[in-house]
């Protein structure tokens, strides 16, 4: 694009058209005082400090003046100085003057402005009126809001609106009393504020300031350990301690933006409850953990190796089950499955994708031929219509949620949401489809029915790139809107409107979550989404596609690395002799031919005595798996259980040996995020004394079992992965230093594949799948009349082992609440905050009620983060037959107030 030439203070500058005089000046190193300007936000022009003189135009704010060819700008003159001085003085007069006790001292824009403009202290003292006395809001555990330090630049208000899309803040009152406030001037924690801290990082003064700020002495670039978004982090380190977190502005995923967990949720790394010595089960105890004694690494590893070897020798390798961590690195998952296959000699290896996104792999593979996200997340801003099915990104993938809000507000993206709950994004949706849990397939077929009936399908795409269309078209004949309305509970008109909106868009993109996969027909639900994309030609182009929002930071990677019982790394076939031969030669072993157990099936085999031992890395099925009474029973029945963990979780408490592991901040490696980008995880601090990385633990265990792992560092492991996995053959650490690479990345010249299926599908054509609705495994009835569906809270993550060891997050969300619709609550005589008992056919729990119309009538909602409220004591273990993923999202329950618990 042509540059615009202008002169600022007699310096010739070439600027990009569309930028402002202020941007151009700052970019050229010419400081113009400013407070309300922020490069991430639209200009506001409220502080009046950036006044400049533009020839022929007089004085004007630089932040509101776009650059023009031949413009002549002066940034200093007596007149400008006077204007700025008055503006600065008025701000300082209202501002508490004690810089020395301010958290932002020396990092304050107002100080910089004052220094530049020159402030006459005597004149200020004369002009100063009474000081405002407004209370400081320090309700938020992570930052304070001190209105007396505020310069009313509005950056926080605009950040909350433009960046976070939360709109918790605005200017309230007027004149001298104007202040930034939440609704009702409530404390921040009582407001809509989601504590992402984006306003805090942008506040130019001390009005919004992080508590406990410590200047880091160095920063380490890495990847967030929470959800599958894969945000770039800069960990601020002092000595051997993480003291702060910044969003990585160079990350294409988050562009510097973070959510509350990423920014403030890293404290668990420093938590005193971190395990730091191997533990061996001993009824006599002797450690700070009852039932365990401390042991040396030598003893613990020796015991683990001997026990695993003994069980293998006595019962065969198939008597041992391994579960890899979806939170660990790729290198660890690769090494772990190699340990299970080459050292133990079994394909009984799995990871926690089994209980979340395995149906994405089966469903997407069945249609497209490969089981991962089709398009980059950047396409959220490129699409016309975004269709969210069974996901609440503002809670579970907050930075994606923010991107969606920005895309709606800034790019005019239209949103359709199918979700039984009126989530934050459902409120911006048109239409919102409040689908009855367990009826996704009917809804998706119904949408296809309308699209076909109205001729909105893409015939050219269907003819050129797909197969199986006729039987699919015939199948969806039976899903007329009236029938689908009766099944799903969604008005027929809304089904038609959604179908038209999705199909008529030039570019439409589907994002879906566990609300699609965690059903007894989860794989079919995924196919239903993919069918819709094929039907409308929304595949292989910018702003289209079907993207699963993967739950954990590296659940994509754990699958890609072959921590799965039915495929080798890179989804290579176990049955293929050539493939097996390649691995056998490289690993110097004989590989088992039979597919291993999916771990959700394995619990049954424990009860039958066929599985006698398990090795679990960084996973807590005793809390996160459905029907956890049975899981607990199975874990307790094992002859031997060894667990690598950071904390003594519920699962670790059932182990015979617990090995203290290093956290994400204490090791090298890579994670793969929801859109297949392989990103580098870097060591920021040393692990606590006594902890080892999972790579070291697994290698040393293998040593003791008589197998020397040749690759024993993360970089060497990545080289081995590249050699063994064609999809990732081009991925090497030196390349990842530059930027992430999305697989497939076939050689060292390949820049990776952000978008899949541009020209063809892995099998040539994609296949429509004719699928049918089936009622969920458990329908509500007279005894259990409500549907329980489960999910995540913004402030917590999975089993809570990390977030609940971050004190501030627990302050924000201290306990679980049952969400119940006012209508149901009234019928059951349940009131807000009251203790209720929730019972299913499998168990019962006690929890306080939150009466809210976020839930549809007949549906109640719980998260599964809290050990005290073990939601999975209620959920059932009915599995999707293809992926063996349990139906977390539909359980029949009854709710009743607890007599006597609510007195006082």
């Amino acid at each position: 694009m042509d540059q615009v030439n202008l002169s600022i203070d007699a310096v010739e500058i070439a600027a990009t058209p569309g930028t402002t005089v202020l941007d151009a000046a700052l970019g050229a190193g010419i400081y113009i005082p400013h407070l309300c300007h922020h490069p991430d936000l639209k200009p506001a022009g409220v502080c009046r400090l950036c006044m400049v003189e533009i020839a022929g135009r007089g004085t004007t704010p630089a932040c509101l003046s776009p650059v023009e060819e031949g413009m002549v700008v002066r940034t200093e003159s007596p007149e400008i100085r006077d204007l700025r001085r008055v503006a600065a003085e008025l701000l300082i007069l209202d501002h508490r003057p004690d810089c020395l006790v301010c958290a932002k001292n020396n990092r304050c824009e107002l100080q910089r402005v004052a220094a530049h403009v020159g402030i006459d202290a005597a004149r200020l003292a004369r002009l100063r009126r009474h000081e405002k006395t407004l209370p400081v809001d320090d309700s938020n555990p992570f930052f304070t809001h001190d209105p007396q330090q505020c310069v009313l630049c509005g950056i926080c208000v605009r950040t909350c609106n433009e960046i976070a899309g939360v709109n918790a803040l605005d200017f309230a009152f007027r004149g001298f009393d104007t202040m930034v406030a939440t609704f009702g001037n409530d404390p921040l924690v009582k407001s809509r504020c989601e504590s992402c801290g984006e306003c805090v990082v942008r506040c130019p003064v001390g009005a919004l300031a992080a508590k406990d700020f410590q200047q880091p002495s160095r920063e380490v670039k890495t990847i967030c350990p929470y959800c599958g978004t894969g945000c770039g982090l800069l960990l601020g380190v002092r000595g051997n301690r993480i003291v702060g977190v910044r969003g990585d502005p160079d990350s294409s995923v988050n562009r510097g933006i973070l959510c509350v967990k990423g920014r403030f949720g890293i404290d668990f790394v420093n938590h005193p409850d971190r395990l730091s010595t191997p533990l061996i089960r001993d009824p006599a105890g002797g450690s700070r953990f009852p039932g365990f004694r401390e042991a040396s690494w030598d003893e613990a590893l020796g015991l683990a190796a001997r026990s695993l070897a003994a069980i293998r020798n006595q019962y065969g390798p198939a008597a041992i089950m391994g579960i890899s961590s979806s939170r660990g690195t790729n290198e660890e998952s690769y090494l772990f499955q190699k340990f299970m296959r080459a050292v133990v000699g079994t394909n009984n290896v799995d990871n926690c994708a089994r209980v979340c996104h395995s149906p994405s792999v089966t469903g997407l593979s069945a249609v497209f031929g490969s089981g991962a996200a089709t398009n980059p997340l950047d396409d959220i801003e490129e699409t016309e219509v975004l269709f969210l099915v069974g996901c609440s990104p503002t809670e579970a993938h907050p930075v994606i949620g923010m991107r969606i809000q920005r895309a709606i507000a800034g790019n005019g993206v239209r949103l359709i949401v199918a979700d039984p709950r009126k989530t934050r994004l459902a409120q911006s949706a048109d239409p919102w489809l409040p689908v009855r849990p367990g009826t996704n397939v009917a809804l998706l077929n119904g949408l296809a029915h309308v699209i076909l009936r109205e001729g909105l399908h893409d015939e050219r795409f269907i003819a050129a790139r797909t197969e199986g269309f006729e039987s699919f078209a015939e199948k969806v004949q039976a899903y007329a809107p009236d029938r689908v309305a009766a099944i799903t509970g969604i008005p027929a008109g809304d089904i038609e409107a959604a179908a038209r909106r999705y199909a008529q868009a030039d570019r439409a993109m589907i994002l879906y979550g566990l609300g699609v996969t965690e059903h007894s027909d989860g794989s079919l639900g995924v196919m239903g989404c993919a069918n819709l994309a094929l039907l409308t030609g929304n595949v292989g182009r910018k702003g289209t596609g079907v993207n699963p929002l993967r739950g954990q930071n590296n659940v994509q990677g754990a699958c890609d690395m072959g921590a799965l019982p039915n495929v080798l790394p890179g989804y290579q076939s176990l049955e293929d002799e050539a493939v097996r031969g390649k691995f056998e030669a490289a690993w110097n072993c004989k590989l088992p031919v039979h597919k291993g157990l999916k771990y959700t099936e394995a619990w049954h085999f424990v009860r039958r005595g066929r599985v006698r031992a398990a090795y679990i890395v960084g996973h807590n099925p005793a809390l996160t798996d459905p029907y956890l009474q049975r899981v607990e029973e199975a874990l307790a029945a094992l002859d031997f259980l060894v667990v690598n963990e950071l904390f003594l979780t519920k699962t670790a408490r059932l182990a015979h040996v617990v090995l203290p592991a290093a956290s994400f901040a204490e090791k090298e490696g890579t994670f793969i995020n929801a859109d297949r980008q392989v990103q580098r995880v870097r060591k920021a601090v040393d692990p606590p004394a006594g902890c080892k990385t999972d790579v070291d633990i697994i290698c040393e265990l293998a040593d003791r079992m008589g197998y020397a792992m040749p690759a024993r560092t993360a970089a060497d492991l990545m080289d081995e992965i590249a050699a063994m996995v064609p999809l990732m053959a081009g991925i090497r650490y030196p390349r990842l230093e530059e930027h992430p690479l999305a697989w497939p990345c076939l050689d060292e010249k390949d820049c990776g594949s952000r978008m899949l299926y541009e020209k063809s599908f892995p099998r040539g054509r994609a296949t429509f799948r004719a699928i049918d609705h089936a009622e969920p495994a458990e329908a509500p009835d007279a005894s259990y009349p409500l549907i329980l569906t489960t999910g995540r809270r913004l402030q917590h993550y999975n089993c809570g082992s990390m977030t609940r060891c971050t004190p501030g997050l627990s302050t924000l969300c201290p306990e679980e609440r049952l969400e119940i619709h006012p209508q149901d609550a009234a019928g059951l005589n349940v009131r807000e905050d009251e203790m209720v008992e929730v019972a299913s056919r499998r168990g019962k729990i006690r929890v306080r009620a939150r009466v809210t119309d976020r839930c549809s009538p007949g549906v109640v909602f719980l998260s599964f983060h809290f050990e005290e409220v073990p939601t999975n004591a209620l959920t059932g273990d009915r599995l999707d037959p293809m992926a063996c993923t349990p139906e977390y999202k539909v359980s029949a329950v009854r709710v009743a107030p607890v007599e006597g618990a609510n007195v006082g």
Partner: protein
Amino acid sequence: MERRLDAILSSFAGQEHELIPILQQVQRELGYLPREAMLEVAQFAGVPESRVYAVATFYAQFRFTPIGRKHVMVCRGTSCHVRGAPRILEEIERQLSIKEGETTPDLSHSLETVACIGACGLSPCIMINNKVEAKLTPKKVAVLLRKAGDDD
């Protein structure tokens, strides 16, 4: 409250620019802007609740606490001021045991001051529920408030 609110909202289209007339009607109907009503209005007009609060707090006409059955407005215009408005206000505050801007706990009276009622010839004067009470003295105030109280 919900029904009265629904009746008001049903005459609007749910657009952001309707915010001020909606709030005015809600206050006319309910006497003030309860939190729940503002939240409802925010949802209806499709604006963030913080924005509704921002708009409502900007204008002096909106109130956030219930108003007493007798709405007492004390004129502090120049004429009233020189003829003793401060003493009148003081007496009312003493009689009602509330300060300017407050409402009695039994919701019988609210007390406000205004810049000028526009009845300078009758100063010092106050208004009680739109009725001007003229040429007051502290003694008359006591009688007046007792009488006003009896009207209940």
